């Protein structure tokens, strides 16, 4: 599977020829990504009849561009109104929104855009080069290891998102419990559905996301005149100086962009892991290795760069198992699989031998779409940041009505609108009492996957829970879980002791 120079030149030429579809697809993807309820996967499903009629190259370029740019779009509302466009941009809210509140919304958007595009660009290039060697990585994680990965993810999120680890864990496990609502995987018996047929497929993620984040946040917003009052900021007129300042900060943290992008790519290769886990792991790792971990959550630039770079690194990683072994890494790649199969393409290792232009082409189109994004987004950032000056008496009704319709859009059930409203009240109570909504959401998101992998493991072990400690890799991951629980606790105790010592010294001085 060596590289062919002529093929390389041909693919670059193809990417330029397909700019006519890549440019509008990128714009479309950014808008879709910014709307909660419209993920790349369900938009591609809606547009499936259209993509099936396109030439295969055009369809792939269109899908790859929408997919990549929607990941970038998700960061826009996360930064401006604390409302993630998708699960992968949830950690972006931790530092993005505080930056907006400090009047640095434009810089935060530039950080997000540049980290996303550079992260996506370098990983898509790296994927092209490393594709034959990366593909088998996803095969090392079996159900036992996946259970531990899920627990690890939940513990990380509890530790990151909440000031209080115990509250974070309660939120996460409550979410996991809600994620178990629905018919069981083997006998299809409904569980915890309160008799609602609409819950047989489980809790709809989009309704939960919209309620817990978007609407719950608007309930807090009503206490302010605007998200950021004009008097407190100087961004009434968009300024290139702020854009350049954002670029300067990006440049300062260039290494952060690169390593978190590769982290995202590696996580993307694991089927089912996806952008949400990647962005959380990247945020946590970035904070762990930082010299200033206490600044995270207060509007610290690496807190935006790490998750955004990682969730765009995922995009190319997710396509690796699809192309190399025929297993879709996520919902969007599953839609791509449908289109490819419709066109008679057999996915798997032979794809690279029989139709290399197609197999590698997807990654070239993705690279081109990231290059297009880089040129488009910087001017956009100047105007988008003005949203935060809008009075809350206008923006709050806008967010509520548009997102409630977004809740309907996913499955076209009025029931999902009710669910979004119920989750909004739950989210508001969680926000006010310090139970971070992120833990709840990630629990709901991971619940069905967790059940699937735990059940598979238990069946393999004939009901014996010790199977979860039967592999070396899983045991290493368990140790990491314990460390993730202990380290924040030890750090808090250390800080408390230091404060007590400082207090004693001050008193003895008096």
């Amino acid at each position, binding site marked *: 599977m060596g590289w062919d120079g002529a093929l390389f030149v041909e693919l670059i030429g193809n990417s330029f020829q397909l700019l006519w579809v890549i440019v509008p697809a990128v714009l479309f993807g950014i808008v879709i990504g910014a709307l909660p309820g419209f993920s790349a996967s369900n938009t591609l499903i*809606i547009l499936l009849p259209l993509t099936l009629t396109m030439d295969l190259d055009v369809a792939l370029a269109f899908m790859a561009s929408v997919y990549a740019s929607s990941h970038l779009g998700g960061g826009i509302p996360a930064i401006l109104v604390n409302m993630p466009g998708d699960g992968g941009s949830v950690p972006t809210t931790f530092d993005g929104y505080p930056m907006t509140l400090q009047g640095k919304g434009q810089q935060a958007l530039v950080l997000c855009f540049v980290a996303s595009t550079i992260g996506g660009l370098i990983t898509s290039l790296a994927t092209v080069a490393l594709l034959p060697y990366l593909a088998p990585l996803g095969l090392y994680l079996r159900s036992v290891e996946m259970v531990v990965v899920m627990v690890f993810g939940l513990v990380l999120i509890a530790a990151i998102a909440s000031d209080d680890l*115990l*509250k974070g*864990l*309660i*939120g996460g*496990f*409550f979410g*996991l*419990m*809600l994620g*178990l*609502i629905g018919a*069981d*995987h*083997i*006998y299809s*018996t409904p*569980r*915890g559905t309160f008799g609602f047929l609409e819950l047989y497929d489980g809790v709809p993620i989009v309704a939960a996301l919209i309620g817990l984040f978007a*609407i719950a946040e*608007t*309930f807090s917003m*009503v206490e302010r005149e605007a998200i950021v009052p004009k008097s407190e900021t100087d961004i009434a007129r968009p300024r290139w100086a702020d854009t350049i300042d954002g670029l300067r900060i990006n440049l300062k943290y260039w290494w952060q962009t690169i390593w978190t992008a590769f982290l995202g790519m590696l996580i993307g290769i694991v089927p089912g892991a996806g952008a949400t886990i990647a962005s959380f792991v990247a945020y946590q790792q970035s904070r762990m290795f930082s010299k200033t971990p206490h600044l995270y959550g207060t509007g610290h630039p690496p807190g935006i760069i790490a998750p955004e770079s990682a969730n765009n690194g995922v995009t190319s990683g997710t396509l690796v198992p699809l192309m190399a072994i025929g297993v879709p890494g996520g919902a969007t790649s599953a839609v791509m699989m449908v289109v490819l199969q419709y066109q008679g393409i057999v996915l798997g290792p032979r794809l690279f031998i029989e139709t290399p232009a197609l197999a590698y082409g997807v990654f070239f189109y993705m690279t081109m779409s990231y290059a297009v994004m880089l040129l488009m987004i910087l001017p956009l950032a100047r105007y988008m940041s003005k949203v935060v000056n809008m*009075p*809350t*008496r*206008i923006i*709050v*009704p*806008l967010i*509520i*009505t*548009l997102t*409630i*319709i977004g809740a*309907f*859009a996913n499955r*076209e059930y*009025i029931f999902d*609108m*009710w669910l979004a*409203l119920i989750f*909004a*009240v*739950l989210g*508001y*109570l*969680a926000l*006010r*009492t310090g*139970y971070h909504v992120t833990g709840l959401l990630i629990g709901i998101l991971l619940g069905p996957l*967790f*059940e699937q992998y*735990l*059940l598979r493991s*238990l*069946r393999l072990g004939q*009901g014996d*829970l010790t199977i979860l400690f039967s592999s070396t890799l899983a045991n290493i991951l368990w140790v990491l879980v314990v460390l993730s629980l202990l380290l924040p606790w030890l750090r808090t105790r250390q800080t408390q002791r230091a404060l007590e010592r400082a207090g004693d010294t001050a008193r003895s001085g008096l």
Partner: protein
Amino acid sequence: MAENNLNSPADQPRLESERPAVGADLIIPGLAVAFTTYYLIGTASLTWEAKANGVVVGLLLYALVAVQLVRIGLRIARRETTLGFGGLFEMTSPQKQRIALVVITALFIVTLSWVGVAIGLFAAMFASMWALGERDWRSLIGVSLGTTATVYLLFIVFLQLRLPRGPVEYVIAWLTGAGA
């Protein structure tokens, strides 16, 4: 020595009104325990495959809530905190606006099937803005109309979403064929 310590303001037992209220901290654990109990009772008679996850996750959740209860109990025993709800349910002006928003959204959802998305959305936007204190008629009508038109074009005409149709949608479809 003990007297000296009590002279320090930080060490004096605080008055009940000064102590932070943590009763609200029990709302989410209370909901979690209630749901878990409902789930476990509902799945008790199912095969082990159907209830295994609920039992594993539910028992862990019970344990975490128990730790939280013990922690809060100890703080109450040390007279550091009270079981009140603080300002969470206080009827302040923003609280009334929040309740109004929930009621308007609920009415929007209830009436959506009969009046269609255009009338429902316009009314919900108008009422929500009014509830939040907007009194400029141009803004009230302009923003409500603009939002409704955008939603109609984007969701119904372009994305072909099957949002509930009402008189306005049927008239537009009859006149133009759009969103039919």
